């Protein structure tokens, strides 16, 4: 396959933006117009941060970072500060800066965050000669003193060089500004975030367990259906159950009514001569019974609220009970 080389290069460079170093100083009154396809490496003026050179009996940088707020405690004014540090030999360079202040200055200079490639401190990023002063604005100059880059009045020096930033020092410490640090501090964000995530996980696990329980219930129900050979739908099963319940109720009533007849206080001359049950109707014939005795004979029927029908003949009484 043959590629059009020129076309490919154009495509590649279209997304590759030019990076320009920019010295951000609150006392320099200059608005930089960003060109199309350009990004800035922001170098923070010492006016925008506090720096200390310290030697600590601590081996690792991560241990130093925990101590940073207390190391600056006595010199910082009221505000919401971020801290960082880097190590150079046995010495730690520790920094404190106010994100909000830097962000406001960037906004003031019409520099959008999307136009920024990186942000670093002048300390460590700029390679300046120790014995020279470099002017950064009309009144101040950058000067290296005991390894610390400081801002000093220009009038202190006889000769001040112009600050020309061509290349940044590779070991310059890059920082990420906390745009919302003033709303909530990092620790609170992490705590809230972790708590919310933990809650989500707990609820997620609870959902999983609940769903598993519901599935188990369904499986148990299916087992029940196969164990008791139930019909596939509950409607069918309910209909069958109600038909069996009807049989049970009828059979119970039949036995109750028959028992009432058998317990009837009959005289020696009075005999049950026929008991017939069919089509849910019980027909009993008792000989030699007169109507006057009905109340006495059927007392138990009245107590149990069982309806009956009597027909008196010359030979006795015909009793009919619907079961």
């Amino acid at each position, binding site marked *: 396959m043959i590629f059009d080389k020129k076309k490919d290069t154009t495509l590649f460079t279209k997304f590759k933006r030019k990076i320009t170093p920019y010295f951000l100083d609150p006392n320099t009154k200059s608005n930089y117009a960003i060109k199309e396809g350009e990004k800035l490496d922001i170098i923070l003026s010492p006016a925008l941060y506090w720096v200390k050179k310290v030697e600590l009996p601590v081996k690792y940088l991560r241990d130093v970072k925990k101590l940073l707020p207390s190391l600056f405690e006595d010199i910082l004014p009221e505000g919401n500060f971020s801290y960082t540090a880097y190590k150079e030999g046995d010495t730690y360079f520790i920094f404190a800066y106010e994100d909000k202040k830097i962000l406001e200055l960037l906004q003031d200079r019409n520099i959008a965050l999307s136009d920024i490639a990186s*942000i670093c401190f002048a300390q460590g990023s700029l390679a300046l000669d120790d014995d020279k002063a470099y002017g950064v604005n009309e009144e101040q100059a950058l000067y290296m003193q005991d390894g610390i880059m400081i801002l000093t009045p220009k009038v202190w020096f006889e000769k001040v060089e112009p600050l020309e930033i061509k290349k940044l020092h590779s070991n310059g410490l890059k920082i990420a500004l906390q745009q919302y640090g003033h709303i909530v501090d990092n620790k609170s964000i992490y705590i809230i975030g972790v708590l919310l995530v933990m809650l989500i996980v707990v609820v997620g696990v609870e959902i999983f367990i609940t769903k598993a329980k519901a599935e188990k219930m369904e499986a148990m129900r299916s087992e029940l259906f196969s164990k008791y050979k139930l019909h596939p739908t509950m409607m069918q099963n309910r209909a069958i159950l109600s038909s069996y319940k009807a049989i049970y109720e009828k059979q119970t009533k039949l036995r109750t009514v028959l028992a009432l007849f058998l317990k009837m206080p009959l005289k020696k001359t009075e005999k049950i001569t026929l008991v017939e049950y069919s089509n849910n109707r019980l027909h009993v014939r008792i000989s030699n019974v007169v109507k006057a005795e009905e109340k006495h004979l059927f007392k138990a029927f009245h107590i149990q609220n069982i309806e009956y029908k009597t027909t008196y003949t010359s030979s006795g009484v015909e009793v009919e009970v619907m079961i």
Partner: protein
Amino acid sequence: MKQINPLQIAALLLVMLLFAFFKLNSAKVELKEAQANYKESEKLALELYGLKEVYANKKYTQRALERILRQPSLKKANVKTTKTKTGISIKVASLDYRGLNSFMGKILNGNYNIVKLKIKRETPQKASLAMEIKW
């Protein structure tokens, strides 16, 4: 360099949490329904099983009736039984009161689905009996 507002992340997490709670609530409703369905099915199954065992167990009914009819008081009575697919009919032309008492006592105390019954006094000592039991 553009950063996401932590409040937006918190809001997103909150929305996710609310969604998770909503899902949990539906899962709990689902579980309650499944539990209620299971309980209802279990109750129905046990009731149906019990009633079927009593009224639709052909083998059990047949064996129980055979046991009753083997009684000495009924042996002499020439009991005629006719079995069909749905049940059994029992006929005795002449039965003394002891035999009748014993037979009816066992039938009425047992769980049989009696669909037809006729006991007629033939003489002061004897009665005829016709019965149909369904299974």
